């Protein structure tokens, strides 16, 4: 397995809690960084100083949280214009956003809201993704989100919906394995069968994160380390599809940069081990 491909497993999300460290130190063995696109819509200051330094040292990818590909009212053209300008400045290796809706009537929930799994939603979302890809001039990855409710109108499973949108939009997928685990628990489906059903060729990136147990549901809190069951799902995916760029998300109770980089290192080691097992079985 090519070393460069294995290194792709060691990505982390850039968070402001680490700005000072990253301005003063080398990023270490973290192979690449993911920024939240909307956090860089303002043009200057310390955030951009950190980003410019990192861009010179490592690949950077852009992950959006507000495109709203599932918004019934459609993606904001103004949003796409701002994103296009950011892409021109950052020159990311790739871009992604979420398979969800996030606002109504011109307002933003600043949250990742669940879609009904219907043919209508497949057609609508796929058309919006195609529009975004046309405007931005590049293919994007869509991330599966965690959810706490479902809809009676849904006519297919979540993974069928995800695959149908990706096929109709011809986009890639950012497979968030923690989100699969959380939603599988909350809705009672099989997480293993879900990740097995995602076409290998569409998986462009993987997210791993921690969650919290709220008693009768799991909450996608990104506030702790990745649990063993999620690591096991990750190994299952890598053994099937090979090395994939992988990133650890940690957004609450954010640890030191060294600790976060250690989690990324663990993902890299697990990815290497899974790839070796895959190669041995081939």
């Amino acid at each position, binding site marked *: 397995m090519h070393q460069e491909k294995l290194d792709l497993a060691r990505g982390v999300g850039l968070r402001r809690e680490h700005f000072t460290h990253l301005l003063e130190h080398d990023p270490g063995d973290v192979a690449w960084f993911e920024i939240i696109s909307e*956090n860089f819509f303002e043009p200057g*200051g310390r955030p951009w100083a950190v980003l410019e330094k990192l861009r010179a040292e490592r690949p950077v990818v852009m992950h959006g949280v507000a495109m709203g590909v599932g918004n019934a009212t459609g993606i904001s053209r103004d949003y796409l214009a701002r994103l296009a300008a950011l892409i021109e400045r950052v020159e990311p290796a790739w871009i992604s956003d979420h398979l969800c809706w996030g*606002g109504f009537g011109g307002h933003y929930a*600043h949250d990742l809201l669940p879609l009904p799994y219907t043919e209508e939603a497949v057609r609508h979302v796929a058309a919006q993704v195609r529009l975004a890809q046309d405007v931005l001039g590049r293919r994007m990855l869509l991330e599966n989100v965690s959810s706490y*409710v*479902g809809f009676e109108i849904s006519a297919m499973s979540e993974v069928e919906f995800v695959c149908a949108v990706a096929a109709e939009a011809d986009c890639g997928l950012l497979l968030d394995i923690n989100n699969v685990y959380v939603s599988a628990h909350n809705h009672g489906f099989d997480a293993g069968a879900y990740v097995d059903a995602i076409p290998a060729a569409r998986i462009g990136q993987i997210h791993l994160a921690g969650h919290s147990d709220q008693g009768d549901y799991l909450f996608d809190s990104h506030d702790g380390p990745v649990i063993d069951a999620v690591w096991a799902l990750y190994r299952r995916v890598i053994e099937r599809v090979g090395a994939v760029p992988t990133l650890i998300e940690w957004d609450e109770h954010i640890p030191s940069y060294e600790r976060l980089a250690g989690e990324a290192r663990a993902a890299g080691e697990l990815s290497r081990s899974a790839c070796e097992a895959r190669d041995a079985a081939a």
Partner: protein
Amino acid sequence: MQQPDLAQLQRRFWRLITAPRGVEAGLDEIARRGDDPDARPLAAWLRGGVERLDIYANMYFYRLLDVLREDFARCEARVGADDFHDLVTDYLLAFPPDAPSLRALGERFADFIARHDIAREHPRLANLARYEWARVEVFDAADVATLALEQLAALAPDALPELPLQTVAAARVIDAPDGDGALLVWRRGFLVYERPLDAREAQLLPVLAQGRTFEALCQALHEQSGAAEIEAVQHIAQLVARWTGEQLLRDLQ
């Protein structure tokens, strides 16, 4: 009961998760208005119940509250957590987020406070909010090259009148939050600074946001204060030297 299409479902979902007193109260409000009779019973269209939908309602409100608590920490300290919570509830009802970045959420907060009942008990709260928002704005305003003292020193005397002067994007002149007079808030490097302004600077610096020549600024001072022309030139020269040292002026050469 007819199942909602995508737009109907999102409209209903949105109304419920942004209802200020939670999903159950939101359902009551929809029933009172009578404009979405199929919203009840919830189980007819939603899997998970009120408690699960309240997760989204709580995430909506508390994420936004956290952003405003961070941006307006001194305002919260002044009025207390409970009153700040209620103020934010009212603010979000009046101004639901309309920008894709959370950074913009507090843009109208100071003006909203000025018109809110809380201003009667805390008459300077809106000023304090403007001060805190100015610090937010300058933190990530555009980086620009600044005029250096060496450039000023090397300037030929006959070039001085036409020297273009414009403040950097990361500079704001506001009313002092807890006193009389004006305050300058600006970013130098990565750090945000502030200092009080005397009456002359408070009049001149806002003019420089649009840009003026040295000569025009001298003329403005002469007209505003009645200062003799020579005195005005000397005063502006001193100010320009100070502003240059503070990295307040763009390099427009």
